[in-house]
């Protein structure tokens, strides 16, 4: 055999190896895609019920007596605000089903409506003061069991004893349905309210704004601090200096510290020593900044290091100062890498739950935070709280909160990608 034949003989083996490797790659990619698809599909499907709510159409009589109002022509805002609205919904239901007289059944009839319906009625009156004394046809929020039943989450064929919806409630729903007086509508509430103990009234807006403020604090603190630290360490710090080495080792180790430790630190330092308000996005952002710093520092340093030295030499040789070399050439060229690192750090921070539990962001907060100092919760913690709640309606809400978290993440990434594209030199 001459050389050429030897080479040819080995050729098949080489190509087989290549094909095998390609197969492994395609196989792993398909597998991960499958898992991803499965996850998204599962969460997406589970979240769908949360985006609609069941409403019942009722003729609400705003009579002054049940509202506990004095007989007057007009009322001030405060009077209307503190009036009683709890009887209005049930009165309308009693009128619709006059045959119901037994006490237990009356209670079941009352429970067809959400306990939050009274607040919707109050808001309706506050918006239209002239409702008082009239009868209005309105859609009123149904209770969570009825909602689950209408959505098909409760099976009518299982025995009554095992079912949260009683037989007569099923009958009423059927009657209302026949009259087109019960309906699933888009759950605007989910996007406009804060948390609630009642699943049909719970919304994501509080956690969404909480996450937004927390991320804002994290970004505004960690990005400039991390980038300046990285620039100093990479460009200015003396090489072969023992205390710079110690700082470097510490930064690298910081990236590996379990996140809950940062929560304990935040509790001990920010809240107990500096008196930053507990549960607030400010303290959450401060804690997450600690976590995000090492990630951004490390990736920024890598990005700075990858800028070719020839560019620095070129600028220096024309007479640029060190700072000018950095701001004119090195930073713009490193910016895509810096942004990539930052987005990874921010994405980690967005999904972080454990450290925030330590600083009280797990508290039940019904109000929507208006600033970084108001008590708030964040999306992943909201997922955690809802997944831990017993009511059936929270199952869908949990998935819907995860979907919201993913959408938030998606938009955050989108902004980063757009920015990166802007900085990327196309030559």
């Amino acid at each position, binding site marked *: 055999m001459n050389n050429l034949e030897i080479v040819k003989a080995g050729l098949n083996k080489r190509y087989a190896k290549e094909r095998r490797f390609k197969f492994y790659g395609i196989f792993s990619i398909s597998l991960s895609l499958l898992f991803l698809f499965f996850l998204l599909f599962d969460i997406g499907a589970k979240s769908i019920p949360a985006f609609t709510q069941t409403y019942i159409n009722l003729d609400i009589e705003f009579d002054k007596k049940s509202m506990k109002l004095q007989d007057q022509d007009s009322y001030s805002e405060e009077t209307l605000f503190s009036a009683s609205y709890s009887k209005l919904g049930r009165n309308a239901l009693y009128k619709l089903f006059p045959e119901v007289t037994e006490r237990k059944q009356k209670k079941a009839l009352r429970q067809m409506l959400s306990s939050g319906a009274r607040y919707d009625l109050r808001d309706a009156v506050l918006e239209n003061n002239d409702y008082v004394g009239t009868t209005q046809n309105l859609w009123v929020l149904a209770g969570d069991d009825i909602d689950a039943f209408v959505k098909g989450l409760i099976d009518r064929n299982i025995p009554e004893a095992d079912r949260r919806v009683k037989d007569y409630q099923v009958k009423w729903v059927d009657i209302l349905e026949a009259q087109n007086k019960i309906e699933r509508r888009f759950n605007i509430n989910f996007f406009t309210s804060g948390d609630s103990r009642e699943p049909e009234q719970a919304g994501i807006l509080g956690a969404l704004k909480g996450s937004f403020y927390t991320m804002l604090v994290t970004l505004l603190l960690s990005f400039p601090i991390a980038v300046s630290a990285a620039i100093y360490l990479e460009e200015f710090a*003396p*090489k072969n200096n023992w205390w710079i080495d110690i700082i470097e080792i510490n930064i690298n180790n910081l990236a590996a510290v379990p996140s809950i430790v940062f929560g304990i630190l935040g509790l001990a330092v920010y809240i107990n020593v500096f008196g930053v308000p507990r549960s607030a996005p400010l303290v959450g952002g401060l804690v997450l900044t600690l976590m995000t710093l090492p990630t951004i520092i490390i990736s920024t340093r890598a990005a700075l290091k990858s800028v*070719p030295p*020839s*560019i620095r*030499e*070129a*600028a*220096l*040789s*024309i*007479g*640029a*100062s060190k700072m*000018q070399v950095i701001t*004119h*050439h090195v930073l713009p*060229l490193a910016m895509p890498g810096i942004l990539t690192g930052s987005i990874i750090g921010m994405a980690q921070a967005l999904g972080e739950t454990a450290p925030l539990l330590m600083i009280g962001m797990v508290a039940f907060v019904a109000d929507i935070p208006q600033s970084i100092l108001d008590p708030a919760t964040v999306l992943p913690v909201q997922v955690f709280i809802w997944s831990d709640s017993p009511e059936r309606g929270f199952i869908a809400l949990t998935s819907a909160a995860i979907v919201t978290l993913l959408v938030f993440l998606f938009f955050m990434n989108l902004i980063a990608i757009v920015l990166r594209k802007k900085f990327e*030199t*196309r*030559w």
Partner: protein
Amino acid sequence: MEISDNMDLDQEISKTVGSPLLESKVRIACRDVNVFYNKNVQAIFNVNLDIGKNQILAMIGPSGCGKSTLLRCFNRMNDTIEDCVVDGLIELDGENIHSKKIDPVVLRANVGMVFQKPNPFPKSIYDNVAYGPRLHGLTQNNSELDDIVEESLTKAGLWKETKDRLNKPGTGLSGGQQQRLCIARAIAVKPEVILMDEPTSALDPIATATIEELMSELKSAYTIVIVTHSMQQAARISDRTAYFHLGRLVEVDETGHIFTNPNHSLTENYITGRFG
């Protein structure tokens, strides 16, 4: 073995032969220049050398003999290397470039540099050339800047090829064009001296010939110091040639003299191809 070698060498090259010093028209003067890396590694030993105005000085010698190191002394680029110490006197137009009065930024505006590998900024051709003038605030308005860009590109022999694509990236040019762009960028700040470190070693023969022609034209306005690996290039373009060996300046003389009648045996070995 090595020690005895070095001792022989010290004997052999203890003093530069030829004519390192000039009577008049001196632009750069070096006296007893020593350069150290990492405190104890010496790269340049006792160099005494004058570089004349409007002349081209070629620095030749085997790899690692310190040509680049000495060249980088003239615009204090060695300052940017940690642990690099330059010792001795270097004067530009009679002024010590290490004196407190001279800022390296000002010095580098006065002593331009062109590198071995073309290194245009990843910006447009215009911005590449305009970078220096903008940096130092040399122009009052845009039309003055336009003039400088045109003038520099013209001097670098690149205007005709690029005048219609000034907003295109400088990195999109061919290697030879990129190197001329770097020359244009260096002369846009109107330096007195241009240092070139093997400017044509990454280029093809035609691009090399263009750059060599360019250097001969630039000589009338600038002092040029060029490090080159090609002895033909040194012979073609330079007025004086300096031969370095292991950090020592062995011989300096008129280029014609060096290549026809070298005084030192090391120089002769090198230029006849027996060494290096």
